[in-house]
């Protein structure tokens, strides 16, 4: 497997984080079916837990949702007990969706090309054309 690439999820997916008590939850969304095949294969609860472990070593739950090309993730113990006692500037974990998008996955150049070149499932009339790999 010499020709696999390591890419951050941000290349092929988007995400939003939210908080409830001490848990931060993430919606992770592939732009299209080809991208969903990659995140469904690569983004397991164990991988996400390992990604956050140097910072927040809590349990992670994951639910794939192929109907909306998404994975739902929940990270336990993420907010020092909850937003109203969390001392961080980002006390609600609003920027943690971006932290998830830093997670690197392994894909082949062909897989990446397919994910980037397949049209987005959503309608983006104002989007500039995505080109290149």
């Amino acid at each position, binding site marked *: 497997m010499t020709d696999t690439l390591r890419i951050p999820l941000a290349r092929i997916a988007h995400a*939003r*984080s939210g908080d409830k008590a001490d848990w931060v939850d993430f919606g992770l*969304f592939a732009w299209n079916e080809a991208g969903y095949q990659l995140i469904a294969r690569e983004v397991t609860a164990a991988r996400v837990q390992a990604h956050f472990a140097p910072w927040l070593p809590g349990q992670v739950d994951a639910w794939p949702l192929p109907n909306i090309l*998404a994975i739902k993730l929940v990270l336990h113990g993420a907010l020092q007990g909850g937003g109203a006692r969390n001392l961080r500037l980002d006390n609600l974990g609003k920027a943690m969706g971006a932290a998830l998008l830093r997670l690197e996955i392994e894909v082949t150049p062909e897989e990446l090309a397919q994910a980037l070149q397949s049209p987005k499932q959503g309608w*983006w009339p104002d989007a500039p054309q995505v080109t290149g790999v």
Partner: protein
Amino acid sequence: MSTAGLLLGVVPHPKSRMRQHDAGMNSSIRIGSGLGFYGDNWEPVVASIEHGNVQFIASDHLAELTLAILQKDRQRDPALGYARDVVPMLLRLWPLMQPRGVRFVCNAGGLNPMGAAQAVRTALAAKGWHPRIAVISGDDVLGQLHHPDVRFDHLMNGSDITTVRERLVFGNAYLGAQPIADALAQGADIVITGRVADAALFLGPLVYGLDWKLHDATREEDLNRLAQGLAVGHLLECSGQGSGGNFGSQGAWQCIPDLAHIGYPIAEVYADGTAVITKPPGTGGRVNFDTVRQQLLYEVHNPHAYFSPDVVLDMGQITLTDEGLDRVRLTGARGTRPPEQLKVVAGFEDGFKADITWGFSWPDAWDKVKAAEAIVRQQLHERKMPFDELFVEYPGLNSAHGALVSLPSAAELNERTEIWVRMVLRTRVKAVADGFGRLFPWMALSGPAYTCGFQGMNNSSQLLGIWPTLIPREQVQARVEMLEGQP
């Protein structure tokens, strides 16, 4: 003051209040998003009322922590304890809603729904406006949480409430859509609640306007359309987050037009539960498959069992389809009967914090920051100031993503133009938190050189822990009261 009539349970809407959009007379309803939190912007709601053809606006003023803020207000003044922005909001919006027959539902009542309703009534009456205002209460269960022989274990970690019972400051059950639907059936123009499930602010008008079964929903078809209604409410409860705001992505958020004039989402919901999410014409933002699904999963845990007091939603078969510019069709929500218990969120006093932010410029900025930190720790030790934790982060370096990203080397940091440090003390002792800021000013003349900013001299505050738990449904009695006539 007029006497508020106390009305319990389902009351048929009086014929005198029949109106164009009354129960069961609609094949579809259009409902628009109000605020998404206490402090949000209501100006985008104007476009929904004037150009969005809505019959209802529903407005969520209560995030999980908001009751903690309102509790502090109520401690200062018992007449407060509600989200005060509802008053100027309705002064702006009511004259636009009234001639169009648009009705308004909100949870701005917080810990004092009657106080909110009276403040709104007084403010609107001063302009000569006299809407019928319904007040929904009964969510306050703090008294029950104090019963020593009932267990209210922490919903997420199973801890026993006795560890925090003495420190509880509020405890509120999440009510459902029924009292809201009842209030609308009684002819309310404005419905003001305390804590209700956020999505119930939207589900209530849908149940009322489309004549859906609710407490008596047992058939799969009844439960599935309630699930559709819950999903609609969930998509609309966070204002602009449902129409392209806060769209988390690399490179795509720039393609969302005119966030400065974002239109809040509107749902067009049909009697069978089918819904289209859209927004007012001529506004910024974007409603498409991507922006809608980011909101669909927001603050959801198990997507196959999204709980509410009215129905449990399974998102596993939901379909979202773009059907034209800023129109997304939502179908496939599946519903099952709601649980016998309601969710409660309580808050408890959990110590104090004080935080300061301090900057140093080149040269040696990193070394100076580390020296300043060491001096602060020495002072805390020598003055015997008790604390649980001194939390340190470096804004611009690691406050967003913590230890996920390693810091550059000390040598590189010492060459930076400036380094900022934020030090936050956690302590059980209020006087220690209040005194933390005073450890710093002397260092302006007697500490490391080239400080380029300091904030936080008087910056202590109370911390609150959140205690989510469950309560048997029969222990919570929702009340609907109608305020009529002159204040």
